């Protein structure tokens, strides 16, 4: 059973006005359970629109979305249940915080699900642990947190609903390098621990290369590629054509390979590259 299946999805903003915009054009794909997917594309390529359709916030102009083989718009009244199943963390989610304390804010989602007090408490604790928010922070006002802490608080607010599918829209945008790395590892850990489906929208190729299994590439509203991460990043020329680039380290190792060194294709992280190159040097007796 697939986690999400999408058929011929289209979304048009401002239909029949001078501002008409086809944000998503005829997109079809299928995501298996437990996959960690990266969604990359230029600004304005329709990533945010696509993920908002996946959890029923935007109704598609045409096409179908199946979550666990159920058409999500077959009963528009139950769309709220889909949003609990497909958790979406918006871009810059820190601007949605509103409660008195961090704890209460994280509890907003679970309480909307109508859970009991103990269950809510449990979920809040777990979610806070996943994103690394300490107990003292939980009692603070969300408006007193630092930018990175606010971000993690908002992400915890969605994780606390325990969605089967977690979608994060550019979760690392605007964070400092250390904050990015920490948050990314936390998301990866969450995915491993729960073995949930996670979709990570990003335009940082390094981030996507580091953690995801598969990558979708969007361009001008269309789905251009959907494949294993190393396969996608070995198609360097095609990516360049649509204005995306491969991770820098992949560029370096590909260049080495072209020079005739015995290096496999599609190396995505610095660690892996260091490993491969030092092996190579050892073999040649230079290390």
């Amino acid at each position, binding site marked *: 059973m697939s986690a999400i299946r999408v058929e011929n999805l289209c979304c048009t903003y401002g239909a029949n006005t*001078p501002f008409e915009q086809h944000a998503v054009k005829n997109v079809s794909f299928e995501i298996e359970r437990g996959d960690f997917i990266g969604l990359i594309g230029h600004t304005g390529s329709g990533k945010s629109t696509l993920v*908002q359709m996946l*959890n029923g*916030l935007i109704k598609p102009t045409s096409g179908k979305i199946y979550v666990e083989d159920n058409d999500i718009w077959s009963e528009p009244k139950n769309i*709220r249940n889909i*949003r*609990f199943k497909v*958790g*979406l*963390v*918006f871009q810059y*989610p820190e*601007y*949605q*915080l*509103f409660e008195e304390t961090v704890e209460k804010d994280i509890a*907003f*989602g679970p309480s*909307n*699900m109508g859970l009991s007090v103990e269950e809510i408490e449990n979920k809040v604790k777990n979610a806070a642990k996943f994103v690394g928010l300490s107990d003292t922070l939980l009692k603070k006002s969300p*408006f007193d947190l630092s930018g990175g802490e606010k971000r993690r608080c908002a992400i915890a*607010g*969605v994780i606390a*609903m325990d969605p089967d599918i977690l979608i994060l829209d550019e979760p690392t945008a605007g964070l400092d390098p250390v904050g990015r790395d920490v948050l990314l590892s936390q998301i990866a850990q969450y995915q491993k621990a729960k073995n949930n489906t996670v979709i990570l929208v990003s335009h940082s190729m390094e981030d996507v290369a580091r953690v995801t299994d598969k990558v979708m590439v969007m361009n001008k509203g269309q789905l251009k590629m959907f494949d294993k991460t190393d396969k996608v990043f070995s198609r360097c020329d095609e990516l360049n054509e649509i204005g995306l680039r491969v991770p820098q380290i992949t560029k370096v190792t590909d260049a080495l390979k072209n020079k005739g060194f015995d290096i496999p294709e599609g190396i995505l992280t610095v660690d892996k590259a260091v490993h491969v190159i030092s092996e190579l040097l050892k073999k040649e007796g230079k290390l």
Partner: protein
Amino acid sequence: MRDIAFGQYYPTKSIIHSMDPRVKLILLVAFLVLTFCTLNYAALALVVACVASIVLLSKVPVKMYFKSLKMIVVIVLITSALNLFYGTGEPLWEWGFIKITLSGINNAVFVAARIISLILISSALTFTTSPTDLTDALERLMKPLTVFHVKVHEIAMMMTIALRFVPLLLEETDKIMAAQKARGADMESGNLVQRIKALVPVLIPLFVSAFRRAYELAVAMECRCYQGGQGRTRMKILTLHKSDYICTFIVILIIVGVVLCNVLLPHTLR
């Protein structure tokens, strides 16, 4: 949310677009007064014909005008219905206590035509003039009031900023609403109290962000040495062109025409 179009600026090229906003503003006021000075059908027809030609000349799709009319259609219907039944004189048709007289019908037609002209002509102004041009024109026209220590520049600046913030805040509301819906907030069902409560998670972030934006804007303006209107020069200097004089002349002709109609022909309204 973003669909709310209170006569938003519609950028194209037309004679009306290229007119000086000050002239447009003055002519609009003249026209509004004129619509209410029509006392017989000839005068009314003249005004309506003129409104229609302005609508067509503006090159804004007629559909947009219908959209702005849609909002007031109820008001038009109610006021003309009231006028219809409160006529005086010989009843043409009677049913119980409901009487319809010739003067009632006349009243209804005039009220409907006047309100519709009013909306169309004001929409024509907002469709063809960008908000900044409009406040600019207002500032210029109110300049004489500085004699009475009215802070004309400050008022105009506040209006410009407010107008600029309306679409921004609407967009922000959309985003926050979507984000809270993603956390299962229910904004569509429940009784009045529940619905008002459901707005709290939207309003608090909205206020926070509005204050943040206001603060950032203030800092940005200060960084560029903004200190109010004194000694400020203008980037865009408004000048009157031939078309402005021609349009003013035409409107004066129409005013004369309406006055002549009123004087020479018998009045339909008393």
